[in-house]
């Protein structure tokens, strides 16, 4: 495909309209934090955020910035840095609609999207308040069972965009995802996948067996931009570790709306040296 490579994360962020259904993966997959900051800079609103199956700093920042109307997730957590402060605040004051789920239910919804089927049955959940709180999920008798056998049916999740950070892309728009196979499902379910990468490389990742096995083909990709350290301050695969000092300072700042705003000013929207240096 031609024309998939963008010059900047801000150019990628401009593709996402207000109100879009946006899917993001769990931290271990590779988080497009640079793109997330660009989305906040652009002032995106009313997102329906789907987390496959959880999120962390990315979700907390988007929520804190007022970009998220609804979140569908199995958890929001900053891991060893504790709870997600802006998420907790937004749940507490009712400004965020939360659709609590369980990890495999979101995987199943995304896989149903990937397979183009309207729903997928899944075991578990019956009798939980997770199920009780979801009026968009159904429980039906398993038609292949002779006895009573209720099973949960999960509607397909079909995001407008999936956002990921990956190791490298070629100029055709093929993305190296390696072991992070959940990206295949996420990309298949989503209308298009926007990707930041550590590096854009020459050649074609699909041509060499060694890379093709771990490559998301360009046909799923809506745009790609180079963003070195693009997952910062989060860890990225085995490539780099969490910026622990930064995370600690984020958690401290994000305890209050004012502290969070000051954090954004400094690192995202302010246009100062540190915000610019972040991208």
């Amino acid at each position, binding site marked *: 495909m031609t024309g998939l490579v963008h010059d900047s994360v801000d150019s990628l962020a401009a593709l996402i309209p207000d109100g879009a259904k946006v899917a993001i*993966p*769990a931290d*271990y*997959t590779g988080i497009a934090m640079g793109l997330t900051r660009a989305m906040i800079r652009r002032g995106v609103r009313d997102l329906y955020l789907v987390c*496959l*199956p*959880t999120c962390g700093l990315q979700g907390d920042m988007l929520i804190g910035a007022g970009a998220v109307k609804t979140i569908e*997730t*199995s*958890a*929001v*957590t900053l*891991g*060893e840095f504790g*709870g*997600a402060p802006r*998420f*907790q605040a937004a*749940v*507490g*004051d*009712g400004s965020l609609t*939360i659709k*609590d*789920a*369980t*990890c*495999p*239910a979101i*995987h199943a919804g995304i*896989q149903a999207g990937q397979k183009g089927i309207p729903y997928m049955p*899944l*075991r*578990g*959940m*019956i*009798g*939980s*308040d*997770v*199920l009780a*709180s979801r009026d968009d999920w159904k429980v039906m008798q398993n038609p292949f069972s002779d*006895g*009573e*056998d*209720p*099973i949960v049916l999960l509607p397909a999740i079909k995001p407008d965009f999936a956002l990921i950070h990956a190791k490298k892309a070629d100029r055709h728009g093929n993305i190296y995802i390696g*072991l*992070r*196979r*959940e*990206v*295949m*499902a996420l990309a298949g379910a989503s209308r298009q996948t926007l990707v930041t990468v550590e590096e854009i490389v020459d050649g074609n990742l699909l041509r060499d067996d060694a890379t093709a096995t771990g490559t998301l083909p360009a046909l799923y990709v809506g745009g790609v931009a180079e963003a070195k350290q693009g997952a910062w301050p989060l860890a990225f695969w*085995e490539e780099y570790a969490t910026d622990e000092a930064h995370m600690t300072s984020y958690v401290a700042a994000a305890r209050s709306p004012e502290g969070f705003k000051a954090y954004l000013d400094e690192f995202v929207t302010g246009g100062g040296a540190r915000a610019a240096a972040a991208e």
Partner: protein
Amino acid sequence: MNSSPVVARAPQQRSDPVSDLSAPDDLRTEELLITLIARLLEGCRLVSCGASSPIPGGGCLLARQQSGGAMQVNVLGSRVNNLMTNGGVELFDWAAQGRLDAFFLGGGQIDGQANINLVGVGDYPQAKIRWPGSFGSAYLYYLVPRVILFREEHTRRVFVEKVDFVSTPGTSDPEVYRTGGPHALVSPLCQMGFDKDRKKFHLVSVHPGHTVEEVLDNTGFEIDVPDQVPETVLPDRATLDIIRQQISLEIAETYPRFAAKVFPDAMNAA
């Protein structure tokens, strides 16, 4: 590798484990919990721990070491002990396939019917205290035969009479497909078992230095207490050596902070 290269296993020492310890404070609580978890995993073919689970992870790795190659262990977040090549969904697929024999769940609240709450305190959804969320609990609890409930905090705040939100229930009605559920509860005070027909925990053993009364005082739900409550059998010297000299290094790959805190000697030596 069924034995440590440093000290041969000596099962006969198990009968008098304390005598093997050079001093009462020689054994750390984390080491005891790792030992208990490993015992609970005996006979499993495939086990996994979840995120943010250094002690369950250590227990899995110890159990593997003791299995002589029969057990496979997946440590979420580990590169070396990763068995997943099909993305994040694979763990859940193992569970439904019947391949995953054991898993671990914690919980902001756990109640007397083994219901687990990972969502929050107060009215849902606008919780007074909001925790991260239910993760995979509302699924794995149904499908993994040995779910080990584990908390490092044993208080009435955690072990409540009734959870505010059922992330996942301890038991299910007979028509609900369920091949798994609570197998044991391990805390810094004691080990409990769960009777799914009676929907009730029972005390299995109390760790040395703690009492039945202390357990009851700090548990917000009713539990069955047998007439004789055994003291928890401590790890023998050989097991402790394996934990300190081998498991410590293995778990440090994923949990360096934990390893530095619990196994400073091993970390300094490495």
